[in-house]
């Protein structure tokens, strides 16, 4: 699971959970994989992602200072910034671990890089 995917995941489908975002990551195995950098793609992703959640996720993976505190002004032309974002967004992968709902504490396992977000019947 890449952090771009993590940035979209929420646990508010659980009954009673109002805000299930962002999920906390407890990773036991993280891999870094090189992915082609495309500045246009990254620039278009930035308005779609939740910046603070992405920073938090990077911190959960033990890389607290890999991103600046806020989105840079005129990020479209800021290649360094885009490269940093690209690295955190696309190249860090959680292979084994758990995602934890911030409200209910429900744990979702991640195995082989695939998070299991299925709920039990009584949780829906």
């Amino acid at each position, binding site marked *: 699971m890449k952090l771009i995917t993590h940035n979209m995941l*929420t646990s508010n489908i659980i009954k009673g959970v109002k805000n299930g975002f962002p999920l906390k990551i407890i990773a036991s195995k993280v891999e870094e994989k090189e992915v082609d950098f*495309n500045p246009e793609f990254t620039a278009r992703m930035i308005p779609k992602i939740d910046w603070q959640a992405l920073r938090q996720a990077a911190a959960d993976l033990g890389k607290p200072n890999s991103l600046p505190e806020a989105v840079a002004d005129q990020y479209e032309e800021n290649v360094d910034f885009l490269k940093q974002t690209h690295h955190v967004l696309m190249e860090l992968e959680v292979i084994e671990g758990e995602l934890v709902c911030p409200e209910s504490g429900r744990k979702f396992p991640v195995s082989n890089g695939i998070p299991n977000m299925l709920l039990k019947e009584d949780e829906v």
Partner: protein
Amino acid sequence: MAAPMDNMKNSDASDVHDVCTIDATVTTGFETVAGEEVQEKLGIKAIGLRGRIRFECPMSLVKEVAKLRTVDNFRVLMFYNSNYTFSDDQVENMRKLRNLVSEVNWPLGIQIWKRFFSFEHNIAAVPENITSDFGEPCFPNIQPPKSAEKSKRKSKGNKWKKKRELKDKLAKDTDQVNDKNEHLDGVQGEPVEALCNTDTVQLLPVDAKDNVQKDCTESVEVNAAKKPRVRENPWNPLMPSFRVTCHRTGDSHNFDSMTAAANFGGAIYCYFGWNVKMTEFDMEVLLNIDEHQVAVSMGLTKESLHKRDITTFGPTTLRPTVANGMLRLCEIQTGDIVCDPMCGAGSIPIQGILSGQQSFHLAGEIGKNCLNRVRSNLKFLSSESTGKVDAIRWDVCNLPLRDKSVDVFITDLPFGVRMGHKVENWRLYPGALLEMARVVQPESGRCCLLTEDQKCLFRSLQKWNKYWTRSKTLVINLGGLAAGVFVLSRTRLPFNMEDRLTMLREFKRTKGGHHKDSRDKGDNPETSKGDDS
């Protein structure tokens, strides 16, 4: 290999080809979509026929045709007559068909064939001695099917006998021995072979020996291992092997495709002396007869291109060529987040990342086995392409995604034929449509669905027409099923959470037998709801 002759515009010299006609088969219904791809990638206008597209391709671009992502098979046209007349006389028809061989533009077909395949020896585009004798018409399959049927019946009878035997263990030993003997007869199929051989020999004069060969390969293939057949025409290692495949449509013909293929193949043998081989052939000559149209073309694909990119197939894996057609319909832009919430073996996300668009794909599935297939299919892609996809296990009616986080949904819904259940679809379709309406971007969001259960989809759309409008519908032929491809666009209306709660309540109320059924089957992922974790 002849060099492309781009700069030589010489229309009246028949042996200088700078343009050839390519026929490409596509999934029926996707002709326009495939035509657009040809226009976009090759800059050529294509004509859409039924299940095929036809376009004039410059020689220099022929190799590029193999890179088209929506075509299944393609071939180069060597002869075409749109107003071919067939007579009432069967023999006359076959004689005419045999003589047709001399009119076919073989040099063109062979020249292009050489660009895709190789043969260790030189293949002459024109035979050394041009023969005017194309052999006598033959009708190879008048007798053999009958005898084949007979032996089948016999063995079926045997099966019954055997069953009876099993039930009734008191049967005498002698009876059993008799039975076994009979059974052996049926398996060996000696009568078939004998009949077939005598038959064809009777039918064929000496000059059409090739048909003996052809006939044998066709109908005696099964028995070949038991009794080595004697080739009347020795295998010529200097010549390539070929087969003729005939597709015939129309009611006005007094012959069948087998007869046509046998006669045409026999004539090619007389003309070129190529070896006849039904499997693992070098060349495939395609004879298409559609009412009054006759086309002869040279096959340029040995296996349908729809099998590319997928290594692990599930029971209902979507053809990558169809997946490509659906992706094209959605007009994906750079930076789009594309999601297939019921991805099966992952055809759509895989084609999405291979099509070269800069988009991110989410591949969701409910079944464990399907996700294993996705993983093994992704493993065969290069690492740079897998950077643009992630797989997640989820239930489409409870997507763990933030509101408005996805741009495009593309999915192949379970039809309820091989996968899932038609009754289950009545829960799944509306549930999925509603959940997708929440997750997709209002106004700009798109959705492309493929299903055979169109009635259910129409009703579900009616239910949620405040969120979705249908912008395009294509009816495609998917392995004989009339399936519909629906392109939907999200309306401007903000999502109302009440709808979701009502839906969930409805689900809980109607939960019953069908739900349990799909759960029991275990690997029936697309329809069972999120319960087995």
